[in-house]
């Protein structure tokens, strides 16, 4: 049943990956061999529908997938995607993911490791200041903690991109991109450097086809969000900590009042929307309701031990706590309701109210319709998704099913301009290259203005053509297409070149630049992409006009022209 790329036998990933690639290409070639390379695409309705769902509910077709989805029918393919738990990951992808060390770490380990790395960095700086002549004997263990933190940061990108590229659960990965962005946190902010992986794995991916309220609660309690939007520090006005609690030297001990950052964005961005009907007073009152929603930033010592909530993380190792001492015990008036003092229950109630609110349904429905249908989505579609959301108590699987069944979705043409993320992932997928090194992709995402986990502000990346289509983007994309097609990207580099401890992303950008635009052969680069195979993979995604231009170009440039064509910029 699996597409040719996924049909490879399970193998040890470290030794067998080149084999995997060869296998994938051979299988892809076999699957399409009957198709003359430059024949004008025969567009039939079933194939066009299959392409449409692959463009919108997947990151575009990988070799063989268009044929398979056409055979199944678009409706059956969507139904399969809506049950991702029934789609097995190929063993080699499982092995790639299994080699990552970060998913095995608890929130406690991640946070403690980060603080240890911070200490180490401070000590290294002090030591440097103490002996400016550099005469100090190098300590072989020096930098180990910082290297670990850098590895964790990098592995979050690996875990995301390897699945986006190769997981058969494509809709799930498309939705991970959507929902992470909706509940955005920024990897560049302190502790979130090591927490983003855990956040996506625990608070986002399991819930993208579940209930909205569940995901909302999971994000509210994840330390990545508590830290990013500062709620972990927000305390009842006048709160005087009696004993040390919080990060060493951090702001927690000094906290003496409200911080309304999370409360505002929770309503403005996560639920009601900016015009969803709340006031500044509602922001302040919600911040009061959420005081005490914090985390144990360090291992508790002595008698002070608060009940950790096991349900907030899949493994029962959440460091979220509700601290009654920091909670504002007064009554609140919020969204026209009187909230009587009830500890953590107040916040749970607030999340219930927000998750069921018609403004939230409207906000989510609009964003989904914009992502999956059109930059300016038809109001009738948004209305029907709102009803579905409200009728099913925010069942996101039901909402996605409605969206897929809607005439507005089914009639949509490939008009959406791909984001940099969608463009890069779809390009590599189309080539069938089995990526083992995602650094060139992370570097390129940064160059295109969409660094992975690098959106600093809580609104996430925007999602329309106006946000991404600009002169520089076109040059960069065409440059990337040319480098990828001519095999200049080290996507299969096996060894692990030293991950620089600081500025890893900048280093990745520089490496990518050198690889793409230098004249030296690059270790771990891929073979040139065959244009005929590529055109067969993409089918009617590439127009007759573009096919004619490709056919009239020098053979070495043909695959580059396909991937850099106007047709491939849209989905």
């Amino acid at each position, binding site marked *: 049943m699996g597409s040719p790329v996924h049909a490879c036998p399970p193998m040890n990933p470290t030794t067998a990956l080149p084999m995997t690639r060869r296998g994938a290409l051979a299988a892809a070639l076999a699957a399409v061999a009957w198709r003359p390379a430059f024949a004008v695409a025969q567009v039939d309705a079933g194939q066009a529908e299959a392409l449409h769902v692959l463009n919108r509910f997947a990151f575009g077709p990988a070799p063989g997938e268009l044929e398979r989805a056409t055979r199944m029918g678009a409706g059956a393919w969507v139904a399969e995607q809506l049950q991702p738990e029934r789609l097995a990951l190929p063993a080699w992808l499982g092995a790639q993911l299994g080699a990552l060390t970060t998913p095995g770490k608890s929130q406690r380990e991640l946070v403690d490791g980060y603080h240890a790395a911070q200490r180490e960095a401070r000590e290294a700086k002090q030591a440097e200041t103490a002996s400016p002549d550099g005469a100090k004997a190098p300590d072989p263990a020096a930098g180990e903690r910082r290297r670990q933190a850098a590895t964790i940061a990098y592995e979050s990108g690996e875990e995301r991109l390897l699945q986006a590229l190769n997981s058969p659960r494509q809709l799930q990965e498309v939705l991970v991109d959507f929902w992470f962005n909706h509940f955005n946190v920024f990897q560049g902010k302190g502790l979130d450097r090591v927490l983003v992986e855990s956040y996506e794995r625990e608070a986002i991916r399991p819930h993208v086809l579940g209930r909205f309220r569940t995901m909302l609660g999971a994000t509210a309690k994840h330390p990545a969000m508590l830290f990013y939007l*500062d709620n972990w*520090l*927000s*305390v009842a*006005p006048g*709160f005087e900590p009696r004993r040390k609690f919080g990060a060493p030297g951090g*702001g927690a001990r*000094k*906290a*003496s*009042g*409200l*911080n*309304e*950052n999370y409360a*505002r964005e929770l309503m*403005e961005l996560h639920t009601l929307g*900016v015009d969803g009907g709340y006031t*500044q007073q509602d*922001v302040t009152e919600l911040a009061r309701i959420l005081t005490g929603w914090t985390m144990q930033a360090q291992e508790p010592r002595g008698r002070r031990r608060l009940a950790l909530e096991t349900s907030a993380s899949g493994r029962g190792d959440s460091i979220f706590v509700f601290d009654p001492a920091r909670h504002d015990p007064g009554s609140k008036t919020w969204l026209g309701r009187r909230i009587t003092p009830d500890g953590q229950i107040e916040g749970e109630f607030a999340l219930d109210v927000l998750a069921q609110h018609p403004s939230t349904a409207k906000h989510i429905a609009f964003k989904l319709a914009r992502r999956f249908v059109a930059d300016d989505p038809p109001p009738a579609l948004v209305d029907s998704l709102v009803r579905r959301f409200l009728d099913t108590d925010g069942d996101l699987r039901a909402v996605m099913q409605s969206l897929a069944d809607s005439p507005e979705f089914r009639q949509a043409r490939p008009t959406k*301009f791909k984001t940099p993320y969608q463009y890069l992932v779809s390009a590599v997928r189309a080539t069938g290259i089995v990526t083992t090194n995602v650094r060139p992709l992370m570097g390129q995402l940064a*160059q*295109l*203005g*969409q660094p992975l986990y690098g959106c*600093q*502000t809580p*609104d996430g990346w925007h999602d329309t*053509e*106006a*946000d*991404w*289509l*600009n*002169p*520089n*983007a*076109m*040059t*960069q994309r*065409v*440059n990337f297409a*040319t*480098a990828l097609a001519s095999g200049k990207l080290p996507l299969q580099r096996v060894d692990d070149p030293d991950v620089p401890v600081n500025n890893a992303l*900048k280093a990745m*950008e520089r490496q990518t*630049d050198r690889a*793409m*635009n230098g004249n030296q052969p690059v270790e771990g680069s891929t073979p040139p992409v065959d244009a005929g195979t590529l055109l067969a993979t993409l089918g009617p995604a590439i127009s007759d006009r*573009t096919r004619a*231009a490709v056919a009239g*170009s*020098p053979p070495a*440039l043909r695959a*580059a*022209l396909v991937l*850099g*064509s*106007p047709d491939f*910029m849209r989905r």
Partner: protein
Amino acid sequence: MQRRHFLRSTAAAGLAWTAVGRHAFAATGNAPLPGSRRLVVVFLRGAVDGLSVVAPYTEGAYYQQRSSIALARPGQDGGLLNLDDHFGLNPNLAPLMPLWLSGKLAFVHASGSPDATRSHFDAQDYMESGTPGRKGTPDGWLNRLLGAEPLAPVPAGARASVTRGISVGATLPRIWAGPNPVANIANGPRATKPTQLDKPQVSKAFDALYAGDDAMSRAYRESQQSRAEVNEAMSPAAMDREQMVANNGAPLPNGFPDDAGRLAQLMRRDPNVQIAFLALGGWDTHVNQGGAKGQLANRLQPLGQGLAEFATRLGPVFDDTTVLVISEFGRTARQNGTGGTDHGHGNVMWALGGNIAGGKVYGRWPGVDPSALYEGRDLAITTDFRQVLAGVCMNNLRLPDNQLAAVFPGFDGAPLNIARA
């Protein structure tokens, strides 16, 4: 007017750029276009705390409400730099003091958007569209300004240069939305690095795919055209000479100073560049923002250095240039429970340039006494940000009255004159 420009540049780009593209810069030479005035907008995204940029150090209420983040009075350790015996400048902006003293730096305090929103994203949107409270405005005010005469004197039959508007960064923000072409250059040294498209056989093949009149084809051609122009203006030899003059060969720190220095060199060497934009994030200081040292200080330091360096590197062009530093709103007058400040209202706008009547803090000052605060928490607004923008357009850029209404539709306030007579 805008429509006409749009058609002209599109048609010219389609037909003529290969003929004139690489020589466009050479043809215009180094002489600035007659009457050419330039505008640079620096947007501080995330709402910079204006009360820590220009602080009213004579007011007790300032110190009472900011017990751990207020800046010390001038003369004290880490103290403010005295501006006018009432306001002081953040000490991390010390590189800007020479400009203040020579009358080329001004501030407009208690300024901002009349819209009450405390949403970063709505407030930025309004400040970029130039139409506070109106979300449907399709274009940004810098793009409308690009379409205005006589800012862009294009001789009859000539092509409007795509580098008239330059944005630094990988994407084009809302402020540039609209029909007039804008070029964007990457942050960092990549702005002038070669790409695969510099190989003639590659560009020839792609040119054929992007020959149409659609948005992608136009963007593709604008990029090719602006790259040719930028590369010519910033050839390594030219850059080396400028570096030597400007900085004794020492490279600028990464980030804003580096980008600003590069933009200055481009503007100095390419007279086509008339409007430029840069954005800088990281100002949303809800926690531990610090005072003379700390998080906000660490952001302000490179900003001050970069702006001063920008002015220096512009050389004589600075005399005809106005730099505006704006941010979507200010922050609460009172510090919050976590050593930071939350979203507020009034803020301070900065203006630098050879034709700024500087050395002065403009605007009616409402004070930070709790009784004077907007909604009991924020600095009130006494100057609409459009008064400042319109004043700069009118007096510094010499935009005629009849064009002003097109750039700021629906605005009927009095433009604030901060230009040197």
